[in-house]
């Protein structure tokens, strides 16, 4: 079985055929000329539980509002946004959630199977290989293979001419990436893989993918943080690592779940003074207002810390006061991230 089924090196499709990258002036790589929603691939990452999935889908809705055919890829997602769209769980296939907004859930096992099927001349052979115990064993032992096939699938989704049969291209692929450590791992894998493997089709694809995700015109990263001690620290470390170790473009940093500024400090003092005189619901309401304003102060301190610690601008997203997040809330957030 020869390597003929692989695209010859010179013919591997590029994500972009236009000359956009020419706009980037040498010496000014930190100044993105392409807005995040104008790119092909956008990674959304951050500490576990900060609302990555919500932000990913809000960005997705924002992009579709601009007429872009968009897909959100959930990679090892904890949250499950499909319910918001009235769907059961999303699997390893592209489903349309709303007009122009698609979703897929990527897991390494299915990505490996698909990769093999695409790489091997006979589909059945890939399947056979995938089912073999020894193969799954070797696949688990091969450094970086699981991450490679995952990011390879992300890249495939972003190709102007898809490799998957009868699949239409997307304008934007939004990756609901794994939490911090694994998120860095995912983005760093192509670079590492290209270095370790050196030869073979995957090494070639790895360096191609690496040049795509480090091309600031084609790919970018959105980091989501929460106004709490740990997430702020992690966000700062994450930003530095993403820039220094991988060289990706950080397009946005969102401080998520910020409380509205409802009471100023004079009012807080006034309410604190009134509390002893209150009872029942009135007291509970005043207590809730004082607590809210204290949490607000604490959040603002964390926001300042994050702004001090990060190199990029930090934008804020509001806390959504709702028992369960619905499409209407996502749409509101979409307006804010546009």
């Amino acid at each position, binding site marked *: 079985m020869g390597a003929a089924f692989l695209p010859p090196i010179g013919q591997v499709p590029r994500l972009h055929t236009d000359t956009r990258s020419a706009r980037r002036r040498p010496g000014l790589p930190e100044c993105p000329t392409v807005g995040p929603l104008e790119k092909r691939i956008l990674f959304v990452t951050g500490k576990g539980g900060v609302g990555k999935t919500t932000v990913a889908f809000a960005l997705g809705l924002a992009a579709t509002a601009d007429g872009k055919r968009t897909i959100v890829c959930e990679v090892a997602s904890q949250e499950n946004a499909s319910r918001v769209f009235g769907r059961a769980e999303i699997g390893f296939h592209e489903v349309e959630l709303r007009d122009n907004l698609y979703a897929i859930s990527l897991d390494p096992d299915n990505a490996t199977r698909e990769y093999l099927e695409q790489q091997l001349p006979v589909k059945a052979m890939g399947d056979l290989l995938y089912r073999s115990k020894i193969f799954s*064993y070797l696949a688990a032992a091969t450094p970086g293979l699981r991450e490679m096939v995952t990011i390879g699938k992300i890249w495939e989704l972003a190709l102007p001419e898809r490799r998957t049969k009868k699949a239409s291209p997307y304008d934007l692929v939004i990756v609901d990436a*794994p939490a911090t450590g694994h998120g860095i791992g995912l983005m760093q894998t192509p670079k590492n893989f290209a270095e370790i493997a050196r030869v073979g089709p995957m090494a070639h694809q790895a360096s191609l993918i690496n040049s795509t995700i480090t091309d600031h015109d084609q790919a970018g990263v959105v980091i989501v943080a929460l106004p709490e001690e740990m997430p702020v620290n992690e966000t700062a470390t994450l930003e530095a690592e993403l820039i220094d170790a991988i060289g990706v473009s950080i397009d946005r940093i969102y401080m998520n779940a910020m409380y509205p500024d*409802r009471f100023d400090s004079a009012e807080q003092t006034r309410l604190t003074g009134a509390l002893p005189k209150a009872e029942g619901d009135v007291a509970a309401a005043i207590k809730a207002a004082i607590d809210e304003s204290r949490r607000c102060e604490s959040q603002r301190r964390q926001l300042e810390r994050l702004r001090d610690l990060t190199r990029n601008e930090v934008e804020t997203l509001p806390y959504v006061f709702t028992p369960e997040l619905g499409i209407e809330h996502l749409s509101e957030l979409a307006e804010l991230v546009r």
Partner: protein
Amino acid sequence: MKDVEQLLDGKSICICAGSGGVGKTTTSAAIAAGMAARGKRVAVLTIDPAKRLADSLGLTELGNTERQVDPALFSEAGVDPGGGELWAMMLDAKATFDEVVSKHSPDEEARDRILENRIYRQISNALAGSQEYMAMEKLFEIHQEERYDLLVLDTPPSRNALDFLDAPRRLTQFIEGRSLQLFIRPSGFGMRVLGRGTSVIFSVLKRVTGMDLIEDLSEFFTAMSGMVAGFRERAQRVNELLADRQTSFLVVCGPAGEPINEAVYFHRKLVEAKLPFGGVIVNKVHAEGRGSDVDEGLAEALTELIGDADLAERVRSNFDDYRALAARDSQNIAKLKRELRGSSVIEVPYLTEDVHDLAGLFEINRSLFAENSPDLKATALSA
């Protein structure tokens, strides 16, 4: 409803499990501090401590060994721990794996061959479950030394809390490599591949990835062959310890819909696996205006008291927002209690400040431990 002290009565291991971002690390630290304040010698094992919390406990250099929290910090927080001690340790999965290999290696040469092997480096760093397994391995090791009354394990953040339970099985299966040994046999000259099908698999993988793993695998198995029995026996004993009556699993979760569902699911899996389930701790619970739904006259009463209609209106609308969250939380918790049929569900209210010192941990403990706990020498601060 039992409090944490009652749940851990007679237990020497407490495993805090739950998905990422629910406050597991803080809860683990609070439980450990609370039990230390009740006279126990406690060690908390964590993967990823909050830096500020670790700093405030004087644990600036958390290595792969336990360090004691200065008893003076307890006094400063207004608590007399009596004979209690609090120790903390940050788990380093890779270092633990290396230690295990060193322990099982017949000689230094065999040890170094493994530590430098590419396959070993992959599994010790990145194989799904190895971090979880090493956390349990360390737990087992420290438990055997019998230096503590109680060990509290903060489990690694994983996508699925259940990965944790599956980890020893997966890892030993991998190391045993039974499926692989059917096809390849280490020989004096490296590894011989048996069967046409297997050689095809190797050549495809080599062609696709550009990595020739035969040599690495051969070396890995040759070096590991002397240790497999040791690993298997060890994993068996770790599993026995987890299932033992002296162990208690506490599930930590948040009050929103999905974390609650996950806690229910995790409880069911623990019961199915015959592992000792203790209870659930629900963090960040909103309780504002719980039980009140009378709106009539609230705005007027507020205006009358504050004397500012605009401010009163904002106080009222803020209260409404929080009451909606509180209503959701109490619904979710009621559902959790129904599913758990009488097991303990402990609620920790949503605090106004991030917890970053011992005093903050004791503030949490006001919820985790019963107020009139007999053994507590002093009341842990008032808010």
